[in-house]
């Protein structure tokens, strides 16, 4: 063993390469390199990216034992570590909130932490200690199932570029303040908040991801937004609140995002946008909007259809469109306001639209009118796929019959009707 076959190939490489190798190993294997040779004894101890996952200790059937082992492992590791720690991630479902975590965060706050991800198991929410707010170099923060309570003296994370809060207990004022006090914030993700009413002020924000029950969202100052993805759940009282609201949600939400390139909406998003007074002609054009994906659109609600249409017609450079209907069985066969479609701007040209995917189509009149509109306005359309809703087997033939009648502006357009 040893030197018989030749000289050491790897121990004298620069630490940056060694780190590059060690961070690609599971952390346990990285620590084990300490017994390889005398040069390798402490190489593992200077790695700057620490990721602790389910596999970092041996599991056994007793959850308490495993939890204790993991806590000991991480504590010992941090104690033996030397040098800065730029990334610290814990994604362990069997680890619950415990007092050691506070000590770890304190340790990290003294070691230039830049990226922190804490995803513990289901259970008591971890109350984040105040030392987190002293991490001046924090660039990326992801917290799952925690309680955040920024102290009044907290002036924001000046380097924070990305924030992801998932099931985090924090007061609305605190979260608004947190967002607006992070001047470099580019990516924001908020999920599973209860009835959040939020006004977002983030001049550098580019990516926004929201999921949960939101009572009210206003994108007050987000001119640089490039990508928005919203999954909006609704409870009865939120729905009530909506009925009473007079503001135009569409404008409040999408009124200030001229640079938008991609928009994705799920569940009640289009309904949310449809509430409020009719904006009439939309104030802005989304010149960069190339992808629109709207799911669970109710084609029985005229207002929702209007929202969809406004979006499409305000996006001259739209390339890809995806719409899915709500999978409710349609209640009425004849729909009101069909003549609205006659008034639709026929000179609207979707000159870049190439791909359209429609799913959960039930064949209701408004759906068919939309398809007709799309086919007639897209001169470069290449493919349109239609997947009918599984519940309406009888109307499929009817749908097909109507489809064939529609005029197509694009000679190349292929319509693919996919039946299960």
């Amino acid at each position, binding site marked *: 063993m040893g030197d018989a076959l*030749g000289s050491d190939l790897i121990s004298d490489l620069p630490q940056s390469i060694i780190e590059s190798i060690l961070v*690609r190993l599971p952390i346990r294997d990285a620590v084990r390199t300490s*017994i390889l*040779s005398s040069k390798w004894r402490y190489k593992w101890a200077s790695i700057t990216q620490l990721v602790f996952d389910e596999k970092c200790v041996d599991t056994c059937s007793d959850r308490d034992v495993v939890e204790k082992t993991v806590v000991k492992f991480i504590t010992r590791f941090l104690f033996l570590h030397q040098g800065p720690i730029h990334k610290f991630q814990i994604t362990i479902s069997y680890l619950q909130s415990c007092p050691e975590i506070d000590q770890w965060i304190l340790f990290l706050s003294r070691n230039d932490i830049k990226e922190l991800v804490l995803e513990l198991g289901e259970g008591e929410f971890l109350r984040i200690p105040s030392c987190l707010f002293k991490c001046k170099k924090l660039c990326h923060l992801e917290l799952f199932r925690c309680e955040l309570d920024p102290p009044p003296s907290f002036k924001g994370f000046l380097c924070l570029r990305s924030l992801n809060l998932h099931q985090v207990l924090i007061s609305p004022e605190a979260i608004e303040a947190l967002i607006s006090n992070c001047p470099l914030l580019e990516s924001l993700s908020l999920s599973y908040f209860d009835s959040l009413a939020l006004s977002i002020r983030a001049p550098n924000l580019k990516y926004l991801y929201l999921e949960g029950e939101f009572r009210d969202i206003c994108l007050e100052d987000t001119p640089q937004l490039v990508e928005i993805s919203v999954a909006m759940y609704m409870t009865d009282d939120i729905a009530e609140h909506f009925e009473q609201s007079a503001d135009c949600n569409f404008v409040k939400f999408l009124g200030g995002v001229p640079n938008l390139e991609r928009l994705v909406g799920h569940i009640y998003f289009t309904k949310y946008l449809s509430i409020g007074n009719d904006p009439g002609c939309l104030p802005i054009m989304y010149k960069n909007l190339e992808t629109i994906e709207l799911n669970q659109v109710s084609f029985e609600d005229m207002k929702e259809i209007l929202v969809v249409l406004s979006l499409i017609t305000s996006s001259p450079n739209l390339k890809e469109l995806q719409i899915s209907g709500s999978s409710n069985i349609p209640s009425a066969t004849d729909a009101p306001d069909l003549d609205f479609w006659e008034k639709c701007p026929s000179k609207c040209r979707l000159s870049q639209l190439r791909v359209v995917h429609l799913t959960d189509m039930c064949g209701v009149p408004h759906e068919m009118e939309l398809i007709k509109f799309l086919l007639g306005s897209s001169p470069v359309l290449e493919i349109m796929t239609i997947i009918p809703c599984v519940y309406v087997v009888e109307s499929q033939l009817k749908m097909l019959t109507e489809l064939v009648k529609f005029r197509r502006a694009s000679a190349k357009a292929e319509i693919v009707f996919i039946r299960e």
Partner: protein
Amino acid sequence: MSEIDMAVIKPEMMKSYIWLQTSDGSIQQVEQEIAMFCPLICQEIITKGMGSSKNSAISLPQQVTPSTLSLILDYCRFHQVPGRSNKERKSHDEKFVRMGTNRLCELVSAADSLQLRPLVDLISRALARKIEGRTPEEIREIFHLPDDLTEEEKLEPLKNITDDPRIRLLNRLYAKKRKELKERERLKNVEIEEERVDERSVDDLLTFINGNDGDSKAVKTPKNKKKNRKKKDQQKNPSLKEDSGPEKKELNGHDTCDQSSDGNIIGETSNLTYEEDGTFSPKIDFDDGDMDDGIDPAIREKIDREVEDFARRINSDWAERMQDFLTSGRERTSTLSATNGNGYLRRHA
């Protein structure tokens, strides 16, 4: 003729070439657009204007040998073409890293010196795959690492996460060993001080027991701390076999002070060696001539036990003893014999 016409007629003419010098001094010509894929070369061309002629060839860092340069250029040649799909690139990369560990390590070093981050990452991943899930022996063999850690260093419990039961057992023994070493040290220290005071008390004991027949000189010998003190003492005082033996043994108490049953063996702590296969072979350095000093082994054992007992008691009541020794005179001795040397006196009365 326009530039485009020229390109159609003589495509080679339109490509510009860059001169690069590798670590061995040789200079070669490389298409500029491929070489520019390396940030370092790019920088040299743009900021320093180097590389346009043979004389101003860009001298590459010493980690870049001609063979590694050729591999790096192959990598760059593939990736600088913009039209390739992610799948194609990934497939190429996977094939690219299929080479000996030797070459991979050379290549990663060269790529790092040229600041070609994607290639460094690719090779790091390949090297990490060679380490993941392997035993230390396998890894040492792959990378030709010297096995130069002492067994002790390898066994240090804090770093040992492998959980091999054999290793756990060794750790435990090691910890025990350390504890005993510490005990020994402590008792040694206790003894040093004990001596000064005990000299008097032992003197008293002796006179009390022997009725002033005892050779007071005998008591002075145990000043040296050597291991074979036992032997020395016994040689000097054959007459005081049973009587003086115990006292000296009492002072030599540290030798038999440990709690475990394999007393004598573990006592010789520094003579143990751990073998790779997990067994340990005690080598007792200490002179076996000891066994021939004339004391009956059975009695010797009894004495050993008593001394052990005595030593233990001395250690625990040390502070109290100190007080006693310092405050009273003769009464002290009787206190001593009465409370501490019960068994002792009974046997020798």
